[in-house]
């Protein structure tokens, strides 16, 4: 990992089109401004990982052979929650 030291208001440039600026420091929190092209997605790491893991879990649980049948059951149960199966 490349490690750089920056002061408040200073910027790091990544490639030709991405700029990261340290905007504010408050205790342990830093506010960071990022300029990047529209097709570059920017996410908080923990949120990104959470979505990724949920997608993988969704594909894995759907892979089960019985899922097709389950979808009918699930929908019927949701439409008629009072009915006993």
């Amino acid at each position, binding site marked *: 990992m490349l490690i750089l030291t920056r002061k408040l208001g200073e910027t790091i440039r990544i490639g030709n089109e991405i700029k990261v600026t340290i905007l504010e420091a408050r205790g342990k929190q830093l506010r960071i401004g990022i300029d990047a092209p529209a097709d570059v*997605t920017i996410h908080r790491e923990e949120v*990104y990982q959470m979505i990724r893991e*949920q*997608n993988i879990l969704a594909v894995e649980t*759907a892979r089960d052979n019985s899922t097709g049948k389950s*979808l009918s059951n699930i929908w019927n149960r949701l439409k008629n929650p009072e009915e006993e199966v």
Partner: protein
Amino acid sequence: MRISTTRFGDIGIDESRVIWIKGGMLGFEHLGRYVLLIQEEKNPFWWFQSVEDGSVAFVVINSLVVKQDYEPLISDDEARLLEISSPEDVVLFSVVTIRSDPFKVTANLRAPIVVNSKKMLAKQVILVDPNYPVQHPITENKVFSEEKACEKGEIISSALVM
């Protein structure tokens, strides 16, 4: 065209109904083309099937079925990327995680698949709003109207598979 899938075997799909997902689904970034498959008429759970990898398929549901007042904020950059010119062309899907108990099935409201149904372009957008959960219990919405739940699927679906 024909594609081969683990679940449905070889199926014929209409090439104009192939959805291009920009950047791929998170965790499956290498796969860019999907089709929406309806397994059962009048059932709002659909399959978002990868064209390139037959073993990858998500169960999805129209997000508005899960949450009627769902109004995710799509940025101008994303709208431009998906070439969205009218909000009416947009269809939102949530990825569903199946559980053995139907009442514990969840839908991901934090990262909807935003589809431009006119251009067949899509993106899984991670919303900034933390109030939309990744695991939203779908039973929370008590009003399930069958017609409403299924209406958007027919617009962009490629095939009905049984």
